């Protein structure tokens, strides 16, 4: 399984604002193997989102090389990049980014609408499958406003899964959630990684979230300062079990 899916060499990304150049990424090199679960850590402004945007083909590096699945990104047109995002990548955002007033299932099938391969029936089947994978088959026709934050994020994960991507990119996906819900999401991510072999890149602030991943890259001022294989991967399922049970309010009904 030592097939590299991402190869990054001497990657730089700079922004110039009013003559001043900000090196958001400064000479970053690393590879990601198929089936890895990587967390990217670092303080605010260290370049995590910038790196993730480049990994997700939303942004292009100022210099350096990025190969996704063996394809050099700098050669591709905008439309080709859009197609790549559509077929190979899945995004999960901190703020869920679901379409308002649109049912969970329609939100999930959205990426497939931009792909000519799927018929209406296939689209629906795949959306249902993805929702089942995030254990939301009973909420298919709920609107985002009728779902909790954790459930909305699960819909977003289902949306990221529905096109069967090779890599899922998440930017602070648990940032808006309480710790229990965060662990539930992490459990889901771990399952996707372990059972379906999805490659996962997960940007986070929180060190306890990083404990669930197999490898952690730490950025500082646009440079990689640490790149460590996690020797003791925690199971989110186990952690959830150990949490004190949710204290149910005592109700009079007996």
């Amino acid at each position, binding site marked *: 399984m030592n097939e590299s899916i991402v190869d990054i060499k001497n990657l730089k990304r700079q922004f110039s604002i009013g003559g001043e150049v900000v090196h958001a990424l400064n000479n970053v090199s690393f590879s990601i193997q198929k089936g890895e679960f990587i967390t990217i850590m670092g303080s605010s402004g260290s370049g995590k989102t910038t790196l993730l945007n480049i990994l997700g083909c*939303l942004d292009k590096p100022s210099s350096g090389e990025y190969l996704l699945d063996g394809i050099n990104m700098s050669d591709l047109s905008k439309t080709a990049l*859009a197609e790549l995002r559509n077929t190979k990548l899945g995004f999960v955002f901190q703020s869920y980014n679901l379409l308002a007033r649109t049912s969970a299932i329609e939100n999930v099938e959205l990426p497939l609408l931009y792909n000519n391969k799927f018929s209406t029936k296939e689209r629906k089947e795949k959306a249902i499958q993805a929702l089942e994978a995030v254990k939301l088959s009973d909420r298919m026709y709920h609107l985002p406003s009728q779902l909790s934050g954790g459930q909305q994020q699960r819909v977003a994960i289902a949306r990221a899964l529905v096109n069967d991507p090779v890599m899922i990119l998440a930017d602070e996906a648990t940032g808006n959630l309480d710790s229990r819900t965060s662990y539930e999401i992490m459990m889901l991510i771990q399952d996707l990684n372990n059972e379906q072999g999805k490659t996962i890149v997960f940007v986070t602030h929180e060190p306890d979230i990083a404990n669930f991943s197999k490898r952690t890259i730490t950025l500082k001022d646009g440079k990689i300062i640490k790149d460590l294989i996690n020797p003791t991967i925690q199971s989110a399922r186990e952690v959830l079990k150990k949490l004190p049970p949710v204290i149910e309010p005592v109700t009079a009904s007996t």
Partner: protein
Amino acid sequence: MKLTNLFRIAWRAIFRNKMRSFLTMLGIIIGVAAVISMIAIGQGSKQSIQSQIAGMGSNMITIRPISNVMGGVHVDNASVQSLTEDDILALKKQPEYLKDISPSVSARGQVINGSFNWNTTMQGVYPEFLTIRSWLVQDGSPFTTRDVKSAAKVCLIGQTILTNLFPDGDSPLGKNIRFKNIPFKIIGVLAKKGENTFGQDQDDVILTPVSTVQKRILAITTYQNIFLSAINEESTENASLEVQQIMRKSHNLPVGTDDDFSVRTQAELISTFTATSSILTILLAVIAGISLLVGGIGIMNIMYVSVTERTKEIGLRMSIGASGADILWQFLIEAIVISITGGILGVIFGITTTKLVTYFIHWPTLITTSSVVLSFMVCFVTGVFFGYYPALKASRLDPIEALRYE
């Protein structure tokens, strides 16, 4: 990108904002409906004017006296007495293009039959007047040239006179009615003519020999009008020129002076009215077109707001694989779907309005296919035109910045 998918995406977006989409459509609906109904009203009145004028006898020519400018003062028409029997004789002398001729003198007054009375016009004419106006006598018979010579107190009554003076349904033939205290014997009843172009009731008239009105009622020797008919419709132009020449000679008008009469042909009247109603139609269509334009600007406005408001959504769509072209098409199709749906509703609404106008206020209307097609095309073009720039703006957004937009 499959077109069906684009339509699906656009349709869902429209449906998500039902109320707003409908309000945007409303501009288009009203615009299209206005164009269709305004053109229908314009065309309808044009058509009815044309057919009414034609119905009056399309080869009819009318001569009227006109005031000459005397020291900068227009002399009132009524005081001008320029049409005389000499003119009639001159016109009758070997005309090339003229067929029938009849002078006309009218007087207004109360007409009485026993306890019934009615205010009407008594028009003195020659028997030929009926041929010129292609008017038939329904009961009885018309008066004759002999009656004109003797200034006989006989008359033909119109349908309105009949219903008002003989409400009981008695036959009026042979009965006497009084006009200005003079008894007139009814010898015939005229067929129904209906309203003329100006909405006047043409059946509200009593026809009598011209000399009778001249001598017994008005005590004048001149005529107010002379009616003529050309030998056929094609020669009305020539006939009217001929009339002008004869009249100038008969009035001894030196070369270089203005006519002291006017010659109008029915064809002229038709074209004058047609031109007027064409201008009316154009005017109505322009006003309606402006409302369609306003509707289009409404679409543009809403699409711009919508693009700004949905910046984050656009970013998301791009992140999951929508290309710039996909986004462009999505918004363009949204605009087109809104305008076409609005257009269809507008056509329905416009046709309904037109029918209601005809049904309730009896205005003549005529819905033409071209007006429907035209307004529909305009509304499609409006959708494309006003939807394009907002859509272009959306497609050029940077996905990262769009995603970050709050």
